């Protein structure tokens, strides 16, 4: 099921959560709404779910306007950051909830629940209560519960945000596989750019209630629409012409046109990568990343003067010239 969000606006008092947001999500795709906290991404997801009403604009599912429709009637599955487990029900009852209130025959419910519990690998814990599960298990239960009613749209609000890093990585690989196996359109909200790039086909980067850029993960990284997009995907160095990523700065021992002078403050070996901390002519600090081999060739030492220039074809924001003077 496709999702079309048109000119959606939402305020909470004086705070503008969303400002004229338009976004289309293709049927069967996995889209990430990415942005820092407070950017409006969760609000947008909740508007799609019908849990929040937009002040302006419309939401359509498969071309049908559902802006005024109650969440009950939208046919969507929603997964919350803090699981929203029905704590007074067993795992089995939690997963069965959507089917039971639809008054499906008992045998059918039992069969479907068993199938889902196997899918999320919780079949051994069916009679436990949520309080007896780990965070990762609770979130898998919440996913099974959402999938039980066979939603055509699955919405996940920071689903792995409350989990530790290892479980988070496991679950996102698993979510991607689940999405590919199920016939579902998935939208995931996250503030973690690595998670978004790992799991999503498309990313919509949101900041201050506005969409900054929509595209495939690579597009956002390789052709950022503005400085915010560029800075959101990792560290950047500001040059006179614009922003450059540290690994796109080239160091040489000889002066060359377009290069600016800097002094080596520290050389840090990080395995395959070497980080070189530098001070520019005005004493401002910045760093570059080199491979181990590159560094070995230069034999950098503390206090040494080097010449810094952006590499050919390096990624920058539009209209970026080659920097002459480096400023952090």
């Amino acid at each position: 099921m496709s999702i079309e969000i048109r000119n959606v606006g939402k305020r909470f008092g004086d705070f503008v959560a969303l400002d004229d947001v338009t976004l289309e999500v293709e049927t069967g795709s996995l889209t990430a709404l990415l942005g820092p906290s407070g950017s409006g991404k969760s609000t947008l997801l909740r508007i799609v779910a019908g849990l929040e009403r937009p002040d302006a604009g419309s939401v359509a599912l498969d071309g049908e306007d559902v802006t005024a429709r109650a969440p009950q009637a939208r046919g969507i599955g929603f997964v919350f950051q803090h699981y929203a487990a029905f704590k007074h029900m067993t795992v089995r009852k939690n997963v069965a909830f959507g089917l039971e209130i639809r008054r499906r025959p008992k045998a059918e419910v039992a069969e479907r629940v068993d199938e889902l519990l196997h899918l999320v690998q919780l079949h051994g814990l069916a009679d436990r209560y949520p309080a007896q599960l780990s965070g990762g298990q609770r979130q898998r239960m919440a996913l099974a519960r959402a999938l039980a009613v066979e939603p055509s749209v699955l919405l996940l609000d920071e689903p792995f945000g409350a989990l530790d890093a290892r479980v988070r990585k496991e679950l996102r690989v698993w979510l991607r596989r689940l999405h590919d196996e199920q016939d579902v359109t998935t939208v995931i909200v996250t503030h973690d750019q690595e998670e978004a790039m790992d799991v999503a086909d498309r990313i919509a980067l949101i900041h201050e209630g506005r969409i900054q850029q929509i595209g495939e993960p690579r597009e956002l990284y390789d052709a950022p629409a503005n400085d915010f997009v560029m800075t959101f995907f990792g560290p950047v160095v500001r040059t006179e012409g614009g922003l450059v990523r540290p690994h796109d700065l080239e160091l040489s021992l000889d002066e060359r046109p377009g290069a600016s002078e800097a002094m080596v403050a520290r050389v840090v070996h990080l395995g395959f990568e070497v980080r070189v901390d530098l001070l520019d002519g005005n004493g401002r600090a910045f760093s570059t990343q080199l491979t181990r081999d590159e560094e070995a060739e230069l034999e950098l030492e503390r206090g040494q003067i080097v010449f810094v220039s952006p590499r050919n074809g390096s990624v920058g924001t539009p209209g970026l010239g080659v920097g002459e003077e480096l400023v952090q």
Partner: protein
Amino acid sequence: MLPIAAVVWESRANGAAGFWSVVSDSQAVSALELSLVCALIVAGINAATGTIIAWVLVRDDFRGKSLVNAIIDLPFALPTIVAGLTLIALYGPRSPVGIDVTDTRTAIVLALLFVTLPFVVRTVQPVLLELDTEMEEAARSLGAGEGTVFRRIVLPNILPGILSGVALAFARAVGEIGALILISGNLPFKTQVASVFIFLHIQSGDTAGASAIAVVLLAISFAVLLVIGAIRYFATRHEHAR
């Protein structure tokens, strides 16, 4: 524990036969029955109204909400004899609203409702405040209507709070005397409750008889509280499952 033990000790002063003759006396039985039935009715009404008041105080926003919230506790602050006087002024022979319930069982229930009002409100309110509203949103997104959300999600989670309040309200209603002694009229077989009956026995110097009735009242109340406790335990089994 000691005061209760002392009451039990005192009640056996007239021997088993004396004990039995006091508590099987038809006026005593009638007073005990009236006390328990009224307390159960009051506890039941409180379960509903207390929950509704708590719900409005937690979930709704209106002008004067904090004032209403503060007023809820006033029945606790008022000496209950004053509460009784107030009720006579309001629902007595000179009622400004034209309702005279003095010397009726309605008067007993009204007086008990007034003095027990805060219990359920105050036990449900914190549970509702703590209740994760995302559970309700999750249920809605799964297709549950508002009625189903309340019945299957909200109610099971606030039920322990309701039951705690009901148990407190029941216990208070069974033992209440101050609010009743004036308005109930104390008519034997009609509006004489056990607490007032006991009070009259003490006044006439029959402490053993008073204690005997008190012991029966205690035993029945204890049984009711045990049942409420058992339901509460069952309703919170997910919390102590390990």
